[in-house]
Structures are given as C-alpha cells and as structure tokens.
C-alpha cells in the first residue's frame, strides 16, 4: 500500500514538473529580470547592466505623463468595469433565457470577444473616423450636428478620438463593448450553477420575482460576479490594445495608460530601465487585486 502512495507522489511530481519548469523559466525569470531592469540603466542602444538604484523610479515620478497615465488607468478601469458588470449581468440574463433564435443572438453577441482585439478596434477606428464616421452622418441627418443652432455644435464632425474627453469616452466604450460578452459568459456560468430546486422552493414558498431576485439569485451569484469583476479589472488594468489602436495614447496623452506608457518608453523609446519601472509599478496593485480575488474564491468554496 505504501509503495502505491509513494508512486503516486512521484507521478504527481512527474506530471507537474513540465508546467512548473515552463512557468518558472518564462514567467519567474523574466519577472526577476524586470525587477533588475527597473533598477538599472539598460537601454536598447546600450544593453550593459549598471545598477542605478531607484533612479528610474525618481525619473518616472518626476514625469507628469506618468501621473497622467496613472490616473487615466484608474479612470479607464473603474468606469469600464462599472459598465461591464452591469451590461454583463443583463446580457447573461438574456442569454440564459429560452427563446427562438437564441443561437443567432448568442453568435452575434460573442463577436466582440472572439475577434482579435486589434481587428475589432480597427472597425471602431473607422466607425469613429474624424471625417467619415457614420455616427456623425446620422447626427447630421437628424439635425443634432453641423448646423448653426445644432445641439452638439455647428462643426460637421464630433472628432470622437481627437477631443480629450471624447477620446477617453470612446476608448472606454470600445473596451466595454469588447469585454461585456466575456463577463456575460462568466456570469451565465454563475447563473447556471444555481441549483434549480432552490429557486423552485422559493417559488413554491410564494416568493415573488423581486424577492427571489434579492434573496436567492443575487446572494448566490454575487461571488461569481465579484470574481469576474476582479478578473476583468486586472485584465483592463494591464490592457493597452484598444488604446494603442484607437488613440495611441493621444491626443496629448489624454488617453495614455500605464501599460501603453511603459511600452512607449521601453520599446519605442528604447529606455528599457524606465519602461520596466513603469511596468513594475503595476505589480503591487495587481497583487492587492489578486488577494481580493482569492478571498472571493474562498467564499465560493465555502458555499
């Protein structure tokens, strides 16, 4: 009996080792390297490694663009997560209901998430074009834009990606559009997981729609919503694809986020040390979010 247990132990390690080695080599090592870069003066022109302490951090903290990017990152994450959770919940409730043509609706609803993000964002880039935007065309047709006393102004276009406030709004809207289907799928999983008999029991006990909603559905799905919200927040926090395609951080850094700024500094600008410092600045925030996720998951397990 003991031999079997021993062999299981060996087998467990044999099965785990490839994944562990792979992850240690290609996540663990680069992570340590990133810390090293952040404390050094490595640039793409001069790859020699000289320790400079916290000088890179001093330099980025002195840079107003960094603070701009930081507050943009929080704004971008906070506002888009708010809408993603609400729309995701509504969408999940729709997708879970039984109706004819469900398959087609689901197919269309999934499109934003399954399309590679750069391609989806390019569709939007054309949709929000500064001259040929069909949104502007509709606004002009209904008289909200382009005439002397129009509600949105006399200019012929909105410049969705050219005005700082509008640009941020557009970037957030596109990100919400793209992530809502994923949020819906995850929340759907949560709704499906509610034991049917529990709802039935509440119905038999005479609980109305709203009471069932607040006393059965919401408490039972809350952990899943919390987990998906935190997953989404981390994803949003570190995502730059939408920003990169739509505005490239502009106009005048109005939509610059930490990740795009790190990319701009580290790859385009060649200052690897500063880029790494900007990127590393994210980590404590992510770790805090990770702890929050794990606590939420534990609550799920307790259930």
């Amino acid at each position, binding site marked *: 009996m003991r031999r079997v247990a021993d062999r299981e132990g060996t087998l467990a390690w044999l099965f785990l080792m490839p994944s562990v080695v792979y*992850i240690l080599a290609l996540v663990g090592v680069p992570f340590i390297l990133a810390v090293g870069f952040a404390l050094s003066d490595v640039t793409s022109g001069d790859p020699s490694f000289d320790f400079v302490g916290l000088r890179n951090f001093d330099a980025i903290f002195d840079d107003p663009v960094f603070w701009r990017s930081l507050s943009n990152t929080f704004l971008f994450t906070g506002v888009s997560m708010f809408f993603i959770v609400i729309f995701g919940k509504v969408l999940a409730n729709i997708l879970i209901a039984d*109706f004819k043509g469900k398959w087609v609706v689901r197919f269309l609803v999934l499109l934003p998430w*399954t399309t*590679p993000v750069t391609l989806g964002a390019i*569709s939007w880039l054309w949709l929000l074009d500064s001259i040929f935007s069909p949104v502007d065309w509709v606004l002009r047709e209904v008289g909200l834009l382009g005439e002397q006393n129009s509600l949105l102004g006399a200019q012929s276009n909105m410049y969705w990606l050219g005005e700082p406030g509008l640009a941020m709004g557009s970037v957030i809207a596109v990100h919400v559009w793209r992530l809502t289907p994923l949020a819906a*799928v995850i929340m759907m*999983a949560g709704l499906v997981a509610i034991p049917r008999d529990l709802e039935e029991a509440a119905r038999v006990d005479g609980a109305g729609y709203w009471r069932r909603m607040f006393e059965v559905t919401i408490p039972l799905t809350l952990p899943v919503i919390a987990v998906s919200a935190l997953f989404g927040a981390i994803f949003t926090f570190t*995502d730059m694809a939408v920003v990169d395609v739509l505005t490239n951080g502009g106009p005048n850094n109005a939509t610059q986020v930490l990740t795009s700024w790190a990319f701009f500094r580290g790859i385009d600008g060649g200052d690897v040390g500063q880029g790494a410092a900007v990127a590393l600045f994210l*980590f404590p925030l992510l770790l805090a979010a990770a702890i929050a996720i794990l606590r939420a998951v534990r609550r799920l397990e307790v259930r």
Partner: protein
Amino acid sequence: MAFWRRAGLYLLAIGAAFFCAAPFLWSLITAFKQNRDLYNPANNPFVFNRPATSDHIIYLFTKAAFGTFAWNTLWVGILVVVITLALSLPAAYALARLDRPWAGWFGIAIFLVYLVPPSLLFLSLSRIVVALGLQDNTWSLVLIYPTITIPVSIWLLIGFLKAVPRDIEEQAMVDGYSRLGAFWRAVVPLTFPGIVAVIVFAFTLTASEFIYALSFVSPSTEKVISTGVPTELVRGDVFFWQSLQAATVIVALPLALVFNLFLDKFVAGFTQGAVKG
C-alpha cells in the same frame, strides 16, 4: 403579462445583438465599397451609392500577405494549443486527483501566475527572446504564448477532472491498467469537453494576443493577424479601410462560430473550476 415579458425579452435580445454586432455589419458594408463611394462624406454611408466591388478583398490576399498572417496565426495557435494541453492536462490531473497535501496551495500559486500580465513581462521577455536567437521569428510566439494559456487551462481542467467519478479509474486499475494507463485510457476520454474548452479558449487567447506579438516580431512575413493586419494595411496616415474591414469580418465570423459551438461546454468547465478548484 406573460406576452409583454416575452416581447421585452426579444426586444432586449435583439438590442444586445445589434449593439454587439453593429460594427461588424458596418465593416461588411465598407469592405465592398469603391473608394469614390467611401470617401464622400455627403454619401449615405449605409448603402451602396456605387456598385459594390471585391477589389479590396483581392488586394487583401494578393498584396497584403493576409494569407501569410492567417497561416501564421493558425499554426502558432495549433502548436500553442498542443503544448498547452500536453503540459496542463497532466498538471491538472496531479492537482485534482493524486491527493497531495500541497495540491491546494499549488493551485493558488498557479492562479497567481495567471495574474502576472504580459505588460509586466514583455520587456524582459523580449530580452530572453533575443538571447535565444528567436527575435523576429514566429517561433518566439510559440515559445512564449503557453505561459499565458497554461495557468488558465490548468484551472479549467481541474474542474472537469473533478467531475469524473473516481470509480472509473479505480475500475480501470482493477482491470489491470497502471495509474498512468488509467489516466490515459479512462480519464482523458471522459474529460473531452474540458479539453475542447481549453482548445477554444487557448486558441482565441493566442489569436488575439497583441503585446508580445508586437514586441518580438517585426518582419511582415513572420507576423500574425493581430499585428500584421493593423501594421501592413496602415501606411503612415493612409488606411486601406476596405481591406482592413474585410480582414476583420473574415477572421471574426469563423472564430465566433466555433466559440459558440462550444460555449455550453466552456461555461460548464468554468463553473466547476471556480467553485471547486
């Protein structure tokens, strides 16, 4: 009352579908437009003011190496999926079934790896890629992408593996299979829905990855769709709009179709992973 609730549901469903799919509809119309039609702000952008043309779709395949990008995305995706399954399936089995006392702790550690984002690693990873001599080579993506997909896949597969009744592998071992044989012949076939979910999930993650692909690979013959299309069809300030939109539609439809086919299985896997993991 029931009728109105029904009508409301349909209205919401149609509204949601429209909101999600509208940009693609717009892409579809744009893709077939002539330049003289497209670049006239007075034209109604939703109809064809001049006859439709397929010139820009032909351009996409003949001049812009779209075929190369699609092919690169496909083979990178397939190889990444194979590597991901080969590594994560045994790892998930070890964590779900082999009753090690540290399994729970290990699962959490893997969960944490998922939270380390590409944006934190791409600078040092591009150094590692250079050191390995893989810069500007699509193989660098084959090497690096599994670091994104393996943690998620382990997490997903644990859920599916826990749903397989223990009796089945015990029976297989009574029948004379070794533990390894029982895993391969009895457990793996029963985990098939989970494997399918991992295939779909890993492939879509890979196809849409952007940061690594942008920082590791610059020659156009080595690019994948997510970086090749935006960089090759945008020349300075000149956007090849119709070809860009055509590329979006050509890629989006098949991916969403496949994803939808497996959605139910995916949802099942995700729930189990999150609740019991």
